[in-house]
């Protein structure tokens, strides 16, 4: 289960990073044009102009996107591996009985960036991840069925049904757990900071700052989900 959660959220993060890499390229191009203009002013540095070609700029933009994605994986997705379950006996005798209600109460009382942002971005990533899973299931089934097993129309219909089922299954089994686990981890980190006298407001700030734009990019592309009902 923890590995499944990690995988689900990581797919969503990649979907986000894949959306922003084009924007990064535009940024790098503009930066390069500015730097070329600057370098060209002096005879000594003029030789450096155009040293970074369009191909290198593409590689740089993609490297940045990859770095961004891996950073979010490290800071936001990795804690999903800390998911653990307790059976009823363990829960009954545990020192502190945690429920989603108690977590929500603390979010309400001390709404730190981590407590607010982490579950939110994880929900978006989990949704995007589930959609990617559904699309992979659907397309793979279609390709497998349409050759010999079934006519293309039947294969497409079957593939769509199974794709939709896969998305529902993943969200029902993993989606909510991923969100709750993100909240649990953010809450634990905030509490730990508060116990040693540090401000809980700075907990996981990098993770929140890096993951939020990716989540926004995904929300802006949410029209993809219409494909589920068309």
């Amino acid at each position: 289960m923890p590995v499944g959660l990690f995988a689900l959220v990581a797919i969503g993060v990649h979907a986000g990073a894949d959306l922003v890499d084009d924007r990064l390229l535009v940024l790098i191009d503009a930066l390069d044009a500015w730097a070329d203009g600057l370098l060209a002013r002096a005879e000594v540095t003029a030789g450096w102009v155009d040293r970074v070609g369009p191909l290198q700029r593409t590689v740089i933009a993609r490297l940045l996107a990859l770095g961004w994605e891996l950073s979010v994986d490290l800071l936001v997705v990795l804690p999903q591996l800390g998911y653990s379950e307790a059976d009823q006996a363990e829960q009954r005798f545990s020192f502190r009985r945690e429920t989603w209600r108690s977590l929500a109460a603390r979010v309400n009382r001390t709404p730190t960036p981590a407590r607010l942002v982490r579950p939110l971005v994880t929900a978006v990533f989990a949704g995007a991840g589930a959609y990617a899973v559904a699309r992979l299931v659907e397309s793979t089934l279609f390709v497998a069925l349409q050759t010999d097993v079934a006519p293309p129309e039947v294969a497409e219909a079957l593939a769509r049904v199974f794709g939709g089922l896969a998305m529902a299954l993943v969200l029902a089994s993993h989606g909510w757990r991923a969100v709750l686990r993100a909240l649990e981890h953010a809450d634990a980190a905030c509490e730990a900071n508060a116990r040693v006298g540090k401000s809980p407001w700075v907990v996981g700030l990098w993770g929140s700052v890096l993951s939020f734009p990716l989540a926004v990019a995904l929300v802006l592309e949410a029209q993809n989900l219409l494909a589920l009902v068309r």
Partner: protein
Amino acid sequence: MFRANSRGLFDFIAAALCLWAAAWHTPVGALVRGGVAKVVGRKGEGRPLLAYFSGGVYDAREVDVPVVPVLPEGLSPEVLAVVPPGVALGRGAFAVLQSQPAAVRATAAALGQRYDVSRLEAPDDVATLVSRAKADFVTDEGAVLALFAGPELARYAVARAQAEGRVPTLEVLSRQLPPGSAPFFSAASQALMFGTAYALSWPVSPSTRVTSAFGYRTHPTLKTQQLHTGVDLSVPEGTPVKVVADGVVKRASEDAVNGRVIIIDHGRGVTTAYCHNSRLLVTMGQVVSAGQIISESGNTGRSTGPHLHYQVELGRRPVDPFVFRGRKASASLPPLPALPALPAPSGDGAPAAAPRPSKALKAAFEAAGAAPAEADDATEVPP
């Protein structure tokens, strides 16, 4: 907090699906797969890590593969002919089709039968097939994908892209099919890039003298060995510069090296650049159509005389603009061993020989019916 109830079959299936998708859809998955392949001593089969961000299309890697440059029948390889976009796309697709495995060629032949094109032995046959198939596959991209992947996969990908409310560009289509379809998209991507490049006209009079060709040369002012990423066309200041195909202005700016420069994005991974202008007549983001005057040539930036530096990029890799205009094509078709578009050091460091203008050039432009530059004939201005 979580109760121990996630041990059911459905949870297991969901976790397995997530892992499967992550293994194929993320660079992290690629890293893990690569690691596992190394441990078990098997050759890794994943894409390069950075290819996970391109959608696998219009990539510079696709310009590396062998391709057969195609010439229209009856034209000398010296002729710079302009062809209408549909015919050009046929040439691009035909060129790529020659380098495909037999199974893919059989798929294309089967599609041909479906659209009453019995043989795919010439670029025009492929052009006819693509234009007929476009009615069913909505865009050129869909039709070209059908040529390489088969009609069922292409139709499915187009339908799913439309269901998402998107225009079925190749990048959008590539996200609709599983990773195993990557070779089809790579071929379609190549065909569309080359097809777009074959349709480019010339920014100034076709008979304009070329004073510095594409390739490695000793830079005239820096005196260092550098790749000359375009061609220098000798024109007097104030000569109207025409855009070589429809597109969008990606950059219209000035710097001390390129002078007043315009970069046009023609889509499908093809861009053109026009440097050292004296006056820019378009602004960034503006939509331009083939033959439109976008600037007046000049001598701005790092330049030793009035000229236009014209550059073509495929998949963001600079290529020799003449490659798709016949000059370097082989007379024997098919096949050619490799794409001659890649820069090759000239060895002695001297600039490559300047191609001579052809007398038949103007006639070829006019015969093609495309939008050629005004033929003000050979302008002999020192660079």
